[in-house]
Structure formats: C-alpha cells, structure tokens
C-alpha cells in the first residue's frame, strides 16, 4: 500500500513545495506598485466595463452537461478496457449495446442541432 503510492506522495509534496516556493520568492523579490493603472487588466488598453460577474448564456451549460454525460460513459469504458481480454466477445457485445444506446443520444443531439452555436 505505502510502496505503491509513495511516488504519488512525493509528487504531491514536490508540487506543494514548488507552488509555495514560487509564491514566496515573488513576495520577497518582487517590486510592488500599488493602485492606478497597475490594477487594471489591460494597462494601456481598453478600459474595462462592468465587473466580471457577467451572466453567461445557457449554451455553455448545455455543452458542459453533455460533456459530463459522455465523460461518465468514458468512465465506464476505463474498467472495461482493463479486463477486455478476460471478457472476450461477451464483453465486446455488452459494451456495443451500451455505446449504441448512447450513440442514439449523440444522433439525437445532432438531429436537434444542440451543438450548433447560434
């Protein structure tokens, strides 16, 4: 258990150290100029209008939720692929059924034009 995950632990520790180090280094060595044009997103560009809390259109949400549904499909593919050799033809057919049913959903999305950005 410990041996298996030791590399991951090392990775996490290293990543944390590097992140903290970069933040500290910039705090120590960085020059600080406050206020004025420095605070703006584009220092010599267009003046920002409003704030960042804009409402985004529902289209993004549709794409996101469709992504999640197919993401979950992929989650099912992952363990299936691991034992594919053991399952053989039987496994192939069952995944075929699964994917075909979802494929219907994909064609439905295309048929309804849900992915069109208009």
């Amino acid at each position, binding site marked *: 258990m410990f041996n298996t995950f030791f590399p991951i632990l090392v990775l996490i520790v290293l990543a944390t150290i590097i992140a903290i180090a970069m933040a500290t280094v910039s705090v120590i060595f960085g020059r600080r100029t406050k206020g004025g044009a420095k605070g703006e997103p584009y220092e010599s560009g267009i003046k920002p209008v409003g704030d960042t809390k804009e409402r985004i259109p529902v289209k993004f949400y549709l794409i996101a939720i469709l992504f999640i549904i197919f993401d979950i499909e992929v989650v099912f593919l992952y363990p299936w692929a691991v034992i594919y050799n053991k399952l053989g033809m039987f496994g192939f057919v069952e995944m075929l059924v699964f994917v075909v049913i979802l494929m*219907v959903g994909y064609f*439905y999305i295309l048929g*309804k034009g849900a992915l069109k950005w208009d």
Partner: protein
Amino acid sequence: MTDQNWSILIPEIFLFIWALFIFGLDLGIKRKNPKILGYSAMAGLTITGILLAIFNGGILFKGMFQSDQLAIFFKVIFIGSAFMAVGSSFDIASEKIRHHRGEYYGLILFSTVGMMFLSSASELITLYIGMELTTIPLYVLAAFYKDDKLSVEAGLKYLIVGAFSSAILLYGLSLLYGLTGTTDIVTMKINLSLVFLSYGKIGPGLILAMIMVIAGIGFKLALVPFHMWAPDVYQGAPTPITAFLSVGSKAAGVVAFARIFVNGLIAFASDVMKPLDWGIIVAILAAAAMILGNITALRQRNIKRMLAYSSIAQIGYVMVGMVAASELGIASVGYYMFIYLFANMGAFTIATIFNDKTGSDGIISYSGLSKTSPIFAAYMSIFLLSLAGIPPLGGFAAKYLVFAAGIQAGYTWLVIVALLTSVVSLYYYANIIKTMYFSAEEPTIKIHPSFPANLVLLISVIGIILFGIFPGPILDWALESAKIFAF
C-alpha cells in the same frame, strides 16, 4: 447463459425502442402533426401491454430481473396510467407545447420503461436505477412549459427534492448492503435473520438504514412529512403529467417499498422486534398523511392543489395496507392502486380538459357545469365519489380491503384514524359535486373533450364501476401477486 429466457425482456425493450421511434417520428414529420405522435404513443403502450401478456413469468440475469405476478400487476398499472396521461394530452400537445412534442410523449414512455424495470427489480442497484429512470424524465416533464413560471418552478422543486431524496435513499441502501453484504433482496432477508438468530442483536445501523430508505421512498410517494414539494409541483406541472406523477410514479414508489420492506425486511415489520421495527414508523407516517392531507385539502381553492393534498391522503390509506405486511395487505394495496389509477387519472383528465377550455384551475369555475355538460359533471362526480370511497364504486371496495388488512394485522387505531379522515375527505370531494350541480350561476362554457380524452374518461368510469361491483378478478390477481413474498 443458455437457460435464460430472454423473451421476458421484450415488453420493456419494445417500449424503449418505441419511445426512440417517437423521437425520430417527431424529427421526421417536422413537428407538423401532433396527433400522429399521440396516437402512436398510445398504440405503443397498447402493444406493450399485449406483449406483456404474452411474454411473462421467469427470471433473468440471475434473478435481477423478475417477471413475477407482482411486477406484472404493477406494470399494467404503469402502462395504464401512461396510456391515460397520453390520451389526455392531445389538446395540450396541439396548443401549449409547440416544441419538443415528440419528446413529451417519448419521455412519458421512458418513465414508464423505468417503472417497469423498477417493478421487476429484485436487487437494490437495479431498483435504484429503475427509480432514477422513472424520475429523471418526470423532472423534465414537470418543467415542460418552459415559458410558464409555475411550471419551471415545479420542475426545479421536483428536481432538487428528488435529487436529495435519491441521495438519502442511496445512503440507506448502502447501509443495508453494508449490514448484509449483499444487494439481492432475498439474500438480504436471509442474512439479516441469520445474523439476528446468531447474535441476538443487530444494532442501530439497521434502524438508520430503514429510516433513510423510508425517507427516500417517502419523498417519491409524497408521504407526510416528505410531502412539501407535492402541491407546488402538482399545481405547476402540465396536468396530464401531474396525473402521471400522482398515479404512475406513486405506484412505482409503492412497489419499491413493498420489495424492500415487505419482502427484504419483513422480519422487522411487527413490534416483536422492538426497537428495530419499521411497522410503527410507517403507521405513524400514514396516520399523519391521512390527517394532514385531508384537512389541508379542505381549504384548497385550486382543483390541482386539492387533488394533490387528496393524493397525499390517499397514499396514507395505501400505507395502511402496507404496514399490515400480510398477503391480504399487499393484495389490498395492489387493488387500491388499481382503482386509484382509474379514479385519479379520470379526475385529472377532467381537470386537464377543463383547463384547456377555460384556462382556469379554480374549483369555483366548475359551478353549474352540470347544466351545460351533464355527462362531464357525472363523470367527475363518479371519480370523486370513488376517491372518497362511496359504495358501490371501486374506491369503497379498495378502502374496505385496506382497512380489513389493517385490522387483521392489529393496527386498529390506524384504521380508526383512516375511517375518521375518510369522513372528512367526503366533505371536500362532495363540495366540488355541490359546486357543479347546485350552483345558482349560469355557466357559459360547454365542454367537448377530444376523442382520446373521451376514451380515457370512458375507460376510467367503466373501470371504477365494473371493478367496484365485481372486485373478484382483480382481487384474485392481486392475491396471486402477493403470494410471491412467501409470508
């Protein structure tokens, strides 16, 4: 996998493919003719019913899919309620729903497929997925009038409450799995009694699991105190969907409850197992449902809200039969749901037609209806009197059986509560009849239901009267279906 009889899956697979076909049909005919979609949905449900009569009996996937009598009994109720919901949707589909008509019908069929899988589930995971498949289409259907604030609110409320209750149910089911080491309900029953016999105690984990499952299914059943969502959702959703929710989805919850509690946890039904018994919890909830549902219904001015509270009360009566946890109890629950299908679908169909014509759901606008549309008023009276339980209509026999089962199991106090609240319920049911018949107002509207809606009304009325006077065949069938539990 050679001895498996795959044909028992045919009704479900057919209905699933038919739902996809309706989606395709809607895209194919460019949303021109809504009637074709409705008729093909009705045809699909009829064919599914016929297929169910041909291909049934047996188990599949090592018992995960059981096509037993209980499943078939409830599948008939599901198909019936979907059929009637589709039948009463024709006017809505041609006027109010301009987009996604195919999806409207298709999702009703999908939900029905989910209910059919649920009622055949003899295993917790399948049962859970069946329940999700039942409710997810209903979330969408409840919010189907996308421009109507009430409908969107209904969909959102139903989604949030439904998601929470699913999570709670899942907690309960996983605790049950943790306690027994199996997801199969029959094996669960055996393991629990083995542990109990060997060690004499199980610990509070089981009661926590039972409370969570009761809460999870209670939300779907709109059992008090998990009923808060029901009036708002019932009011906002399109009326045929409300009807489908109140009959089909409730029957699905009832069958899930029966499978888990009356089969899997039957050993813990009576108070012999104190404090690990679920009977008393459910009995108290049932009493609360009957009292609260009936008394709140008295004050409603909107027919859909009134029927919502009435259906909260009705599920209380169903639960009286359920806590009896006997063969007669389950049979009476089955019979009750069967009659409830006709009475409630009929009443909601009338509310739909009336709303299509007048745009109003207020009880007051039904005044004097008997003068212009006497048949229509007579139908409504029959449905309401059956819901109240007046002989010789079906509702009377149903209530009688449920009460008999309750008394037989020793829940005399619960039956007394049920009797008293039925008297209360008569008041608000009769109030609508009074409004229709004895109002001085001269109505101007005349109701002409479309052909499918007429068909639905006719089926409901015939069902109520016929099975009220001759309860024999349905009761025998319900008793047969209760036998699978091996009390």
